[in-house]
């Protein structure tokens, strides 16, 4: 790692900033939930999004709702816009697979191909809907990379193993999607790079002035 890449002072979030991110995530999630409800004909429960700054090496700790040891699968999709870059992750435990498949109206044989298909579909919808809401509030338009399967049927610890990083911290927004009458537990995790945090702090400063 290059020494100059290491920040002397770690970034800290003030309570006001944290509240503001939480509120932004709330609104974005509300819009996403509304879209989902229309698509899937289910009521989406809205828990409070968790906003935290993490050391990148502690990333797996960001996923509080999921069983760390149990096998899970994940898809990630990068996004960038206006100096803000990050990745969105969709993660669910493999034991939830059947419920999610039923929810998405999947029929037919279970297979690896179907598993990938389902991961992609859920990622498209949850990440797409959330990013749209987030972009509208921050008044920008994100470019989105292609989603990629991060791993399948592995413990979360192995799925989220950040390799060489030139930055230390990440702003993580964790959203646990729960659906009424469906025992589905699916995590949407948004991770922003260290340099994006400054840009976003400036953007929300403008929101906080109002």
């Amino acid at each position, binding site marked *: 790692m290059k020494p100059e890449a290491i920040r002397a002072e770690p970034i800290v979030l003030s309570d006001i900033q944290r509240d503001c991110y939480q509120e932004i995530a709330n609104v974005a999630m509300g819009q996403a939930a509304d*879209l989902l409800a*229309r*698509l899937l004909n289910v009521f989406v429960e809205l828990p409070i999004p968790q906003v935290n700054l993490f050391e990148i090496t502690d990333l797996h700790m960001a996923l509080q709702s999921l069983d760390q040891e149990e096998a899970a699968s994940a898809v990630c*999709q990068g996004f960038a816009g206006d100096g803000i870059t990050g990745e969105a992750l969709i993660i669910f435990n493999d034991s939830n697979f059947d419920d999610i498949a039923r929810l998405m109206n999947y029929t037919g044989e279970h297979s690896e*191909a179907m598993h*990938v*298909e389902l991961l*992609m*579909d859920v990622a*498209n*919808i949850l990440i*797409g*809907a959330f*990013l*749209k809401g987030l972009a509208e509030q921050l008044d920008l338009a994100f470019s*989105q990379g*292609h*989603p*990629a*399967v991060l791993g399948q049927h592995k413990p979360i610890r192995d799925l989220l193993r950040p390799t060489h990083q030139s930055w230390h911290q990440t702003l993580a927004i964790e959203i646990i999607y729960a659906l009424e009458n469906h025992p589905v537990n699916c995590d949407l995790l948004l991770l922003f790079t260290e340099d994006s945090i400054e840009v976003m702090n400036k953007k929300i400063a403008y929101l906080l002035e109002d």
Partner: protein
Amino acid sequence: MTDPQTLRDFHWMLEILQTIDVGLVVIDDEYRIQSWNAFMENHSGRRAHTVKAKNLYDVFPELPKEWFSQKVETVRQLNIRAFTTWEQRPYLVRFRTYHPITSTAEHMYQNSMLYPLMDTKGSVSFVAIVIFDVTDIATSKLALQQANSELARLSRTDALTQLFNRGFWQECLYREMQRSRRHGHTASLIIFDVDHFKPVNDTHGHTVGDEVLRHLGRETRKNVRETDIAGRYGGEEFGVILPETSAAEALVFAERFRKLIASQTIQAEGVELSITLSLGIAEIDENMKQVEEWISAADAALYVSKDEGRNRVTVSSQNR
């Protein structure tokens, strides 16, 4: 008046969209093709005016209707982008690769992005389909996966006999013990050894010795059931794990195999020879705590076979 520079930029943009090496298709709410760039023309061999207003699924019968429509409807309803990758489906529409002669791929691998196009009333009736050629990435990833699985196969195979090597076979034995404990199934282990193998090497040389082992490997693979796990345990010692098999059932197989090998003639380097086997059988029992105890029981039975004159099968005293 339109600023001439803006007009020029606009023409440039159109020119770029037309020639960019990415497929662009716009469809309306009835899946009729509205727009089609040069990439689509060149790879499909159909000019834009010949497909204009034609149904997408008529133009590309290989595109699965239900699957693709579901993606398009999501884009329309949620007003969001959606993506498909070659890992889900190698391609949306079947095109040849850019290297039809030198590429190993038979078709172009494609990723695609679908995005909503708003009309003037603010509703989404048109959807843009962007097709990316990812043949190079896909073929190298597939080649890598293939190389990895070949490496994995090699790392657990004994080169001479093509049976599992000791390390992997022992891992299987450990797993079988766990499984048997968890589900209450029984399992048996056969260990066998070539009688008087050292004189074969000493008299005829190692090439003949190797051929004997190769022959045994072949015959073992041919005769075990699909669920049995055969490995080369040591020099001329072999092991077969028989899941859900009692000692009595294992004995039937072992006797048949012993007689078969004894009846065969092996030819190597102009030499003809016959070999016999000594075998030991141990069925798993609940007192065994470690795989080593299971192996020891089968080994002890094998040594009884040796002591009693070779070319015979013995069931472990623990199973009697």
